[in-house]
């Protein structure tokens, strides 16, 4: 999405100097009462935020001051107030991400600490969460192993990706390159609408129709299989993959496609040799987005799985399904407290970090491809 500029110390220093200068200029140029208003607003907002964080009943007072100050600023110094307000909203957006990070990490910390293991005298916090395989939050010996859930999440994600990625990309190719215009104009919005089917509805159908059917077909004990959760999650991610990948394919310039066709190649050759490679970044971003959805998908897994953390036997037995990181949280948050609740937050941290990396990764791929393609967007 963006090209990271090379960060060298000199650049940073220069930037800092520029910032300082700009700050001074700003103070010089701004009328004093505007400056006061903005300062009051900023300080009171900060105070309100601090109050909220500290669970103070007085939070409302600085917030009221903030409202009054901005109201005054809006009437008298709209230009400046607008700028400051929009800056505030921007900062809050980043703050939300920061707060999520801080809070779920903080909540997760007790269990991470509890699960410290000494390796050659070096304490490694949280290691026990990943080397044990038993989740037993109540019955001693108490263990908070996340391995079974990670195993479940990985299996579901692999299956879902195997469903959503090839089918989704092929369908996107169909929509953007092959389908007649009328079909495309009907199907594209249809697919986008389908992306909105709530996951609980998929879960409902999976739970009432698919799970019993699978138990019957594969003669398994009980219901809930990673295989079918994976398939359902894959289907759920499918419209997203199709829609995003289609956009990417569509953004390949017509001149490139025409260029290939004018050389006397078939449509299929043009698609595989020109369009797909050129749209590679967008298509892979679509797939990564789909993978992210699959990893973070909660309700279908919660409803369809058995909810008893444990590894399947053998490990590749996809006909059994116990729990994923998400379903663990959804199924247990209500019963858990203390370290067990904290362990659920560890699961949340793992999910969050994984998906964040996927997101950053896809942004990076896209930026790189864009650079490589030069002007060809």
């Amino acid at each position, binding site marked *: 999405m963006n090209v990271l*500029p090379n960060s060298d110390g000199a650049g940073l220093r220069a930037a800092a100097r520029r910032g300082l200068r700009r700050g001074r200029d700003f103070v010089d140029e701004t009328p004093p009462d505007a400056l006061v208003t903005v300062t009051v607003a900023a300080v009171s907002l900060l105070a309100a935020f601090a109050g909220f964080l500290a669970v103070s009943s007085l939070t409302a007072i600085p917030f009221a001051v903030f409202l009054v100050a901005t109201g005054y600023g809006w009437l008298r110094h709209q230009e400046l107030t607008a*700028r400051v307000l929009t800056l505030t909203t921007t900062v809050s957006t980043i703050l939300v991400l920061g707060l999520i990070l801080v809070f779920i990490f903080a909540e997760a910390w007790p269990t991470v600490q509890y699960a410290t293991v000494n390796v050659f005298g070096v304490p490694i916090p949280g290691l026990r969460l990943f080397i044990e395989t038993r989740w037993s939050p109540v019955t001693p010996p108490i263990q908070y192993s996340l391995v079974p859930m990670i195993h479940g999440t990985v299996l579901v994600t692999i299956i879902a990706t195997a469903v959503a990625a090839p089918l989704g990309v092929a369908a996107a190719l*169909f929509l953007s390159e*092959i*389908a007649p215009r009328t079909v495309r104009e009907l199907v594209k*919005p249809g697919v986008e609408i389908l992306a909105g089917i709530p996951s609980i509805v998929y879960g409902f159908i999976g739970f009432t129709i698919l799970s019993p059917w699978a138990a019957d077909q594969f003669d398994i004990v009980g219901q809930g299989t990673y295989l079918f959760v994976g398939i359902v999650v894959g289907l759920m991610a499918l419209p997203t993959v199709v829609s995003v990948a289609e956009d990417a394919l569509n953004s390949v310039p017509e001149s490139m496609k025409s260029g290939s066709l004018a050389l006397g190649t078939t449509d299929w050759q043009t698609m595989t040799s020109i369009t797909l490679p050129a749209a590679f970044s967008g298509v892979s971003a679509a797939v990564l987005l789909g993978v992210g959805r699959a990893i973070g998908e909660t*309700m279908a897994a919660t*409803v369809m799985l058995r909810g008893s953390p444990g590894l399947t036997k053998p490990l590749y037995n996809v006909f059994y399904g116990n729990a994923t990181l998400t379903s663990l949280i959804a199924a247990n948050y209500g019963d858990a407290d203390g370290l067990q609740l904290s362990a659920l937050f560890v699961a949340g941290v793992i999910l969050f970090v994984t998906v964040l990396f996927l*997101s950053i990764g896809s942004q990076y791929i896209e930026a790189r491809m864009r650079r490589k393609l030069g002007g060809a967007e």
Partner: protein
Amino acid sequence: MAGATDTALVSEDTSETEAVAAGAVGLAAVLFALSLASVFELVTITDPVAGVPMVALLGGLLVVLGFAVVTFGVGSRLGYVATDPRPTAGLLASGTFGLIWFVVGGLVASQTLGLGTAGWVVASLVTGGAAFAVSALPREDIGSTLPAGALAVFAGVVFLTGVIGPSWLWDLGWEQQASFNAEFTIPVLTAFCSLLVGWAAAKAYGGFGARGRHIGAYVLVYLNAISIIALLFLLVAFTVLKGLPGLFKGLAFGAGAGPEVTLVGVTFSLPVSWPFVMNGVALLNDVNGVLPAIVGTIWLVVGAVLFAVPLGIGAAVFITEYADRGRFTQVVEIATNGLWSTPSIVFGLFGLTFLVPRLGNQKSLLAGMLTLGFMLLPLVVITSRESMLAVPDEYRDASAALGVTKWQTVRSIVLPAALPGIVTGIILGVGRIAGETAPILLTMSGGVAPPGSQTVDVLGGFQLQYAPPFVTNPELMQATSALPYQLYSLITAGVGQSSNIGAIDEFRWATALILLVVVLGFYAVGIATRYYFRSKLQHE
């Protein structure tokens, strides 16, 4: 060099050989449809079709199909059929065939012949290697038909001879038991073989070469597209069919049929009575409904929008109009994209630990609103940013050249021009959050099947006071229900047995349907808005 592959500019009418290939493609399609029908248990594999048991029919057709394709390939190689094949079928096809036959060889050796590990590995390598060689070494016409046709014939013979018959069962022998039965295996194998042979036949129809590959690929791509569309359509249709009876139970029209409502001081009866959406769950109801959940969902959405939209648009204004493109905007971009893909359950956890303790220490509507607001925020930022970037710089330049300040320009030119995109983005985002279950599970979930009298009344709940926090609203501070959560509790908790709901299954499907209607409604409106604005822009 050119001329080596020169083909006629104009091809003649369909030849007989082409008709044969086309016939094979059609047969493969029939076979595929038949196998789907048996997977979905429309016919069982023992049912007789046209006097022949299904298994035998499938097996027989596979054999015929396999032979047809192989014959075509060989005919082409010997020059009886005019085609335009490449020297080899290509790495992808060869690899795939090698892999398939590797698996087939291994399974036959280990399961049927009962060979040990060494035995089946050798067998696998032999069959896989042979298939690879047959596919890679000869010309494309042989290479892409022979391995596929042989597989179909092999499968057909296996079915016909009853090696895999109706009572066949393969216990995988895993510690957690699982097995494949004939009812599943036969249709699935048939479907797979018919796909493979159908592809080979389509290639043959196109005379191999570039055109053949084109047609072969198109057959698969079309099939994929049709299946996806059909599947997703079925999904919705199924929900609708199952949900309709419950949804419209007790629907009545006529003056005064409906409940009394008071609007602006005037009380009147609605001319329609729709119990499912106008009632809660209560003892005295003839038909129970989900009114509190619907109202809860609406308030959730309203709250989330009120919170996220100003913040999101403000942030988008700042990063597109004020901030220099640099590290800061990059951080915002990464943050918003990261937030956008954050799993909803993580937002739930965040709400649970950040909001709930700060908002009266219990799950509440307000906590749910804010949590969903956090989820909506990144989408608003992203779409607003995109639509503001799409506003041509000329407008900004023109406005600046008229001596108009930046904020005035943003307010009068940029925001109005970007509005369609922003609105569309918000509606789509609302569709997404309206269907979310996980976050409200952790932050808002209230009663599972509340009575109509417990429908939240946010507007009526505001109270003023002289001490901080000046404005309070107990309704916001209480948990209520929402459609996705209600469906969740109906499914998993088996609620209903003791909740006087009555026809619980009907009630559940109706709830699923109304959730679907609400969410897809938002999406449909969002997408229609986008199309409307897009066509309007293009028109001008």
